[in-house]
């Protein structure tokens, strides 16, 4: 009973927290990109790429949530024990907070990258690579959540 409840909270936390990070990141980047586009609409493709970069955190959160739902019996299968539910909740916090803060930080980097590319299009690839430097922390959080979540059903707790 409690196990399922905790697992659902875990899925929600992973999606929502990481989603907030991405939403803030992409939102800020999109605002700046539109400013650039109002001057020169031919930059749309490049701006789209830079704007979307902070969007992956939300995706990672969603995938962890999906894996939790698959493994916790909501979509068929055994229901988790309370211990397993707590474990799901713990696992979800990694991508939840990792995604939240790295999404916001990456959004800020994106804004600067957009400004840089707007000045000189040749800077685009440098901006892109610099922005992805932030992403590694979301990825690490994602991998921690992932490795725990897929192993929880086998845990006897």
């Amino acid at each position, binding site marked *: 009973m409690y196990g399922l409840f905790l697992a659902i909270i875990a899925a929600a936390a992973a999606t929502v927290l990481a989603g907030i990070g991405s939403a803030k990141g992409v939102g800020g980047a999109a605002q700046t990109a539109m400013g650039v586009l109002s001057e020169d609409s031919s930059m749309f493709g490049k701006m789209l790429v830079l704007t979307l970069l902070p969007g992956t955190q939300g995706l990672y959160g969603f*995938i962890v949530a999906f894996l939790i739902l698959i493994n916790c019996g909501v979509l068929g299968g055994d229901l988790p024990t309370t211990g397993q539910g707590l474990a799901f909740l713990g696992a979800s916090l990694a991508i939840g907070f990792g995604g939240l803060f790295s999404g916001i930080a990456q959004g800020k980097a994106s804004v600067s990258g957009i400004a840089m590319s707007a000045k000189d299009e040749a800077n685009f*690839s440098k901006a892109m690579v610099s922005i992805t430097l932030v992403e590694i922390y979301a990825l*690490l959080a994602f991998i921690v959540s992932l490795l725990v979540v897929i192993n929880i059903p086998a845990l006897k707790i």
Partner: protein
Amino acid sequence: MKSVRIIALRKDRKRLLEHLQNSALVEVTSEETAQEGFVRTDTSAQLKQFERNAELTEQALRILDREAPEKKSLLDSLRGRREIDPDEIGEIAANSAKITGICKKIVKLDHQMADNAAERVRIRTQIAQLEPWKKLDIPLNTPDTASVAVLIGTFPRGYSTQELSVAVAEASPDLIFEFEIFYSSSNLTSAVIYSPKKQKEQCQAALRTLGFTQPMNPTSKVPEDKVRRLLKKDKDLEEKREDARDEIAGYAEFRGAIRDTWDYFVMRSEKYKVISGLDQTKHVFVLTGFVPEVDCEKLQALCERVADCVVEFEDAGDDAPVKLRNNAFAEPAESIVTMYSTPSKNDIDPTPILAFFFYFFFGMMFSDAGYGLLMVAACSAAIAIFKPDRNMLLNLRLFRNCGVATIFWGLAFGSIFGDAPAVIYNLITGGNITMAELLPWPILDTQKDALTIMVMSIAMGLVHILIGMGCKFYICWRQKRYAEALFDTGLWMTLLVGLAVLAAGVAAGQLLVYIGAGIAIASALGLVLTQGRSKKGFFGKLIGGVASLYDITSYVSDLLSYSRLLALGLTTGVMAQVFNMLSTLLGTNVIGIIFMIVIFVVGHAVTIGLNALGSYVHTMRLQYVEMFSKFYEGGGKPFVPFETNSRFFKTDIKENNK
């Protein structure tokens, strides 16, 4: 790269330059000033003329595109430039005067339309100002009669007849007056006030206290007539604007010709820029530049065919530009290398290595046979149908090759549009089968075997990094910096290999642990002994050596970075799976099937868009940050040949090179 000097007769100048421009074999260089004994031709007047004409045609084209847009699909941007015969340029040149005339007309019509629009704004303002006077049947500047003063004007608030008469009477009790209100709104009342002429001053003073103002620039016509005249004028202008627009649209048939002429002017101005940098005497001119080594013979043959000339080649100096040359497999990835930086003279060309890993890692992250197949099909079709120009062609080939790798990894991970085959199979038969059971070959399940794939990713990262370090080793060795090659690069390579063997030993067997640990410890000792060699004193050297071991953290973080191969691969698979699951929600009735198709198409389109972008960005990052940082310097100057930078036509190069 060779530097080249071509000495030819001046009478052949035009012919030779045109052939050089069409063949795009040589980059022309020019000193600031002419060498002694030579003069330069001042072409700035012609140059300016061509540039002005190019600008004019460009402007005309833009106007034409705005007023008479051409039907164009998004895919047309893939289409290559139109190929034309070199002889056709002569025709374009002959036509250019006529086309410039048309462009001038278009621009003039556009100016007229702009003036017209401004005039209409003025008319509208005038009409709006006359609005309160529409019912007035005398001119606004009607003079006083012999005995009656006529005051026409507005109050800044709304009055009814009664309110106004009270207000005026209060302002001046003994004033004799009569008035008519013509218009009244909440904040404006227009009225005509009559009073005996001898009380005019008094009346004006009274009205002033109520905020009464007389109109500025009153007309001598009855307002209604004036409005009618203005409306007519407005309509005329509108008609004129339509006429101008129709006339511009009528020139749409010249669009192609205008484009060609634009290119022609750009081409000519480029040629004149080159001419202005040539050293010349009365009969001879000298052209200097760079030419790729493979093209030397071709260039010589071309020059000797079209002109009497001497062509001399020399080894190029350090400032020579760089042109990358690769086979069909690696060539598409050249743009990825140059996007980072063009290789310098000291670098080796990293394109072949980069190309392989670019495709490989992209495939592993995008990892879906269905998506890969779509990429290959779409890119191949675009290449066949649109015959794109070189840059676009290379990009399409880049993604086609990535698509092949994607198919490979998709099959390895058992992902074909996610788990679509299994989902459809289950839907039809009512079974409960997974992709692993459905496919005849063993697969790596990204979810169940995540740990295995992560280890694989990091192992591949190790290989990638070691190859990067191997390049560094080779570059140092080639430059005879043996200490750097052996100690700074070689020892780290053996240390990493030792640690990898050690890690493999932990899983596989005791013997490997000893071998790995042995190699790692020996390498680490070597590093301690050698890394402080530039420091002074025994302790300086020792501390420098020990501190260098701290660099291990950067190698570890580089290696961990490759875990993104797993993360992005998994993302693609799971997103596809989610959409497959959603699509079957409504079952197998008619509505369910329609719903399924819609969700399937839209869902997979979203997955492709997001994950292709992610894979592209992250594979690029792995090349730039993890591998290039190990050895690549960049900073070279790209080779920019003297060629036709046209937008709409290209001359048939094969024709010129035969």
